[in-house]
């Protein structure tokens, strides 16, 4: 995909040009700046930059990139340098492009629950900015006070509360970014749960090697009404790990589950004196958030479970202040290790949740074998561990042992089906370990992605991907049948399996994939709640009009096996909740309409099955009453299951299906609220059934909803409320979508995608303006040069000139 930009003169001295461009406070090339910007939080060193550019606007950042392009200089993006894998480190002669001055914060859109911020805004600032609107930015890396949003995006950062809410990618609606030539692009239309090649999937976690993020439109989530935080001291670490698995496998859905081992507790206590016990092997911190009654009930259930698992003295954080202090101590734990030893290597391995106790035991063995000390913090609920091996870097032998032990831990995590990195990224630190995880074909595709985005190789060269000529690991075998791994909270299924079969298998264990797709598809087409197969779900990033859903396919997809257009098989992702090892091919495929690769199997996250379903019906003037219903339903959280409305205006019929807890405060409460909203409407029916009896639902649905062969998906670009369109519609609270069986009238507010026509998916729609089509074309050309896979018309025609 060769591209020729407008010809530019090449000035002799790029430094002079940069200095002219940025002025003395925006271009720094004295020794002090070159010393400081040669470092980040990783403790690694590569070299000294030529200089540091600190543009104050995105236009100036673009100009810096153009100047560097003209001079052939490599550019290393930098946020605040809190990265732990050396991603922001420059080699000799490279230019550091710091985005810390892009600090504009847009107004919070309360209905759309989103905000547009500059790349230099700090993670924590976003939440502080949104707090008065009752919202916050969910990803909360322990470094959140200092890490920039650009850096969070570039590393696809996680954090304790990502257990419930998902990592950064799940909260990125749209990115404004610059390519290596300084051209400005966007990634999409900003509505969640939409079809299309979303370049945000690649930019997230790309560590500044594909493009520079200048602004991010982020999703915000409501601040919970109530929170309960439990602190459970365990005499033995293995018991703590097993208790975490039990807690989640039992069907509780905490917002965060963290663990701190004894060595770390001692350091944290010495540093902050929170009052953690230091005479135990580990402490488990579990937090619940939501409605007050829900939190109280879950907190109590968790307390009993933890007590039964070996922690008799579970303590409940007394109030918000204590909770805040607890998290502050947990989040500052990493820094406290500075008190333990002169040097340390911090790992970031992830394993399938059920393997956590095993890995913990194995690490004890590795410690003994290599004679090293290890202190560990865990994002335990995510199966993500940060074992820190301590050593004295003045002692070469000890240094060697420490690194050998670290590699042994990484290998062990991989053997258990895990990943080398969950959130810190590959950077330079884990380059050597990436081939241990990724197969050769996936590596070839990742290199292809890099070449398409940055053909001259000037964006953060030498990071993320080692040379292609390496010993890559073989891909795991393609699963042949549905396998529910309850203790991992995952389900793997071949692409041809019907989603209904997957849901049935999961339901037997009390779990589901929070997507809908509960019934076998009828002959006519993907009726409500009955999309066909796993493969289709991944391709379309939707299960069709869901009946109770919550997340988008992309949000629950963890791993895929696929075949590219040339018939080469590859495997991407891992059966773990966080994974930033290399470019994210897994999520690139979600919603790609099958144009890049044919999916052969996939692994999804499981969530506890909402215990009950409720179904209410009304008759009356639906159009007039709709806003009142919507106001009530839009407030429902996406989990344990987002409600769905089936409406027929001509028939004066409206039905609400909601999933929830078997408790007066939940579905009964919702029923009451709806009854209040309905005022003049007559409630004709209301029943609650255990969700295991889901099969009765089709019986209550109108025929048109069950058997339609055409479905149009409408998304409000602002993510906000959608108006009823046409006579019949299905409204889904999350991901917010309006489905209609007939073509809706044209609207400027809504993005319409005719996902299914005549029972089959339509070709992938063209991307909105601002998305670089030449890159989509480049991806298509690389993945499917012979066009043996479905190819939408807009990709058949010649290249767009950017």
């Amino acid at each position: 995909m060769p591209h020729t930009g407008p010809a530019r003169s090449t000035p002799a001295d790029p430094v002079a040009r940069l200095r002219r461009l940025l002025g003395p406070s925006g271009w720094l090339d004295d020794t002090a700046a070159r010393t400081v910007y040669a470092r980040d939080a990783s403790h690694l060193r590569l070299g000294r930059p030529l200089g540091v550019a600190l543009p104050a606007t995105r236009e100036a950042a673009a100009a810096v990139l153009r100047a560097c392009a003209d001079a052939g200089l490599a550019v290393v993006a930098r946020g605040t340098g809190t990265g732990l894998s050396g991603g922001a480190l420059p080699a000799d002669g490279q230019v550091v492009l710091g985005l810390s001055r892009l600090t504009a914060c847009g107004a919070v859109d309360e209905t759309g629950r989103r905000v547009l911020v500059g790349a230099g805004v700090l993670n924590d600032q976003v939440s502080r900015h949104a707090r008065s609107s009752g919202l916050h930015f969910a990803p909360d890396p322990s470094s959140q006070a200092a890490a920039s949003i650009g850096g969070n995006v570039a590393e696809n950062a996680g954090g304790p509360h990502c257990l419930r809410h998902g990592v950064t990618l799940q909260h990125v609606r749209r990115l404004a970014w610059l390519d290596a030539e300084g051209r400005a692009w966007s990634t999409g239309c900003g509505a969640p749960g939409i079809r299309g090649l979303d370049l945000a999937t690649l930019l997230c976690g790309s560590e500044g090697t594909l493009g520079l993020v200048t602004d991010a439109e982020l999703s915000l989530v409501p601040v919970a009404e109530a929170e309960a935080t439990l602190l459970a001291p365990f005499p033995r670490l293995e018991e703590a790990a097993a208790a975490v698995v039990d807690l989640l496998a039992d069907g509780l859905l905490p917002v965060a589950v963290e663990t701190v081992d004894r060595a770390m507790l001692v350091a944290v206590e010495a540093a902050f004196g929170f009052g953690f016990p230091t005479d135990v092997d580990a402490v488990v911190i579990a937090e619940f958030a939501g409605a007050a009654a829900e939190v109280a009930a879950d907190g109590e259930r968790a307390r009993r479970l933890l007590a039964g698992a070996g922690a008799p003295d579970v303590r409940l954080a007394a109030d918000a202040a204590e909770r805040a202090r607890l998290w502050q101590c947990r989040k500052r734990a990493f820094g406290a290790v500075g008190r333990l030893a002169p040097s340390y290597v911090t790992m970031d391995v992830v394993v399938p949740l059920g393997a956590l106790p095993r890995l913990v035991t194995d690490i004890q063995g590795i410690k003994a074998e290599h004679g090293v000390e290890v202190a560990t913090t865990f994002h335990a609920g995510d199966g993500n561990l940060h074992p820190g091996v301590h050593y004295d870097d003045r002692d070469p032998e000890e240094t060697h042992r420490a690194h050998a032990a670290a590699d042994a831990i990484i290998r062990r995590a991989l053997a258990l089906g895990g990943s080398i990195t969950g959130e810190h990224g590959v950077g330079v630190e884990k380059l050597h370990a990436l081939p241990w995880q990724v197969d050769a074909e996936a590596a070839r595709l990742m290199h292809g992605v890099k070449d398409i985005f940055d053909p001259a190789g000037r964006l953060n060269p030498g990071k993320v991907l080692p040379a292609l000529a390496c010993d890559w690991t073989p891909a795991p075998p393609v699963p042949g049948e549905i396998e529910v791994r309850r203790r991992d909270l995952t389900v793997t299924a071949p692409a041809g399996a019907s989603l209904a079969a997957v849901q049935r298998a999961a339901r037997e264990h009390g779990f589901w994939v929070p997507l809908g797709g509960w019934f076998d598809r009828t002959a006519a087409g993907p009726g409500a709640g009955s999309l066909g197969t796993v493969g289709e779900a991944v391709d379309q990033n939707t299960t069709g009009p869901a009946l109770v859903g919550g997340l988008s396919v992309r949000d629950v997809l963890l791993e895929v096996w696929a075949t590219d257009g040339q018939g080469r098989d590859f495997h991407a992702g891992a059966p773990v909740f966080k994974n930033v090892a290399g470019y994210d091919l897994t999520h690139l495929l979600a919603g790609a309409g099958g144009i890049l690769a044919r999916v052969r199997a996939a692994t999804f996250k499981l969530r506890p099955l909402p215990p009950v379903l409720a179904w209410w019906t009304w008759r009356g003037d639906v159009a007039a009453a709709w806003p009142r219903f919507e106001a009530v339903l839009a407030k429902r959280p996406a989990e344990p299951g987002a409600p769905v409305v089936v409406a027929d205006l001509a028939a004066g019929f409206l039905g609400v299906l909601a999933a929830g807890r078997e408790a007066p405060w939940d579905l009964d409460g919702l029923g009451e609220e709806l009854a209040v909203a309905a005022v003049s409407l007559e409630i004709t029916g209301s029943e609650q059934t255990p969700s295991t009896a889901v099969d009765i639902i089709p019986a209550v649905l109108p025929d048109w909803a069950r058997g339609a062969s055409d479905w149009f998906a409408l998304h409000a670009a602002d993510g906000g409320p959608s108006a009823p369109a046409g006579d019949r519609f299905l409204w889904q609270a999350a991901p917010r979508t309006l489905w209609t069986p007939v073509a809706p009238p044209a609207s400027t507010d809504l993005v319409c995608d005719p996902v299914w026509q005549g029972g089959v998916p339509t070709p992938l729609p063209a991307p909105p303006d601002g998305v670089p089509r030449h890159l989509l074309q480049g991806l298509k050309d690389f993945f499917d040069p012979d066009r043996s896979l479905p190819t939408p018309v807009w990709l058949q025609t010649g290249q767009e000139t950017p």
Partner: protein
Amino acid sequence: MSETGLRNELEDLLRRCVECGLCLPHCATWLATGNEVQSPRGRLLLLGDVLDQASPDPAALSALDQCIGCRACEEACPSGVPFSLLERGQQRAAAAAPEPALPGPVLRRLDRPGFLAALRPLANTGQDMLAHLAGRTWRDRLARIAAVQVLGTVPRGPGSDQSLVALLDRLTGNSGPWQAPRPAPEPDAGPLGFFAGCANRGLLPDTSRRLRGLLEAAGFQITVPGNQDCCGALAAHTGRPGRAARLRRRNRRAFAGAGRIVVEAAGCGLELQSRADGPEAEAVDAVVVLAGADLPPLATLGLAVAVHDPCHARHGQGIVDEPRDLLRSIPGVRVLEPDEAEVCCGAGGAWGLRYPHLSEELGRRKARLLAATGADLIVTSNPGCLGRIADGLARESVEPPILPLTDLLWYAAIRAKG
């Protein structure tokens, strides 16, 4: 300690820095510049060379010199890197520091209350005249002249009791006659030496008087030794250790036998506390004394009040709860916390005079954040902060007035029924 011993100790302390960067968002100079050279981590990375080399890199020296010394980073650091490290760097840099923005004779006289008192009307009329005559743009241009800029930051209190009462009456809707608080009939709270402080004495004498009134009403026996002098901080920070030591000796004599010393300016308090050859009596911040005092009844004031903590109180002396407790002790007052509450306002004593532009920018930032709380009123307890933030509020054209906390308390006392 031997040279190598010192070197090893420094090296060990430096190694404590795990380079995590968690201190960055607490550092005012980084927030204002986005430049990591002007951050605690950046300065620590440069410190080794600065201390080691005979003629260190000027850019590194300048980075250390631009450290305000606010200590916000020390508190934020999870690894326990002590501020004393940066202080060493600052001292090393002070020698090679750039020319002060103010001429030496002016700078050196800033620790003389008389000089400051003379400055007060000049600052008042000077600023008002500028604002009136020059209009916004010219005012901004003129303000680039350091001396003019500094004039804008000279702390100005509300002045006489009448004007204070008028201001707060307007905010609270109170009216009518009032009476100053009366000393407790049986003063049983113990003796207190009163440290006058140059800036307070020279620039905010009415506030000092009201503080004394409150303390006496709370039953303290106040003595104001006439032979006391400047705390010595300014002299120490502008490279005149001899004068600083002389001043400390004088104060040690003046306060001999005093039980506790009450100090209004947090910078003076910290200076008095941290030098072994200062007064023997314990120097306590006025806010701390007030928070523990049995104050007269306070009127209900329907005010939303944002607090600004002086760095030398918050980071230097750990005073955080006391001003809030005091405010909450006034019925009807709602306490508001600004974003970045722990970040320096840019006053920084002599630092602000040496880096007037950076200082101004920080003052504006602080003013914006304080105003963004939606407060009716801002309070603080340090003259430097008061001046810096008042200037920021004026430059940003944002509304809430700023007052010494003491003045608000005094007003609540005089407006109490009965």
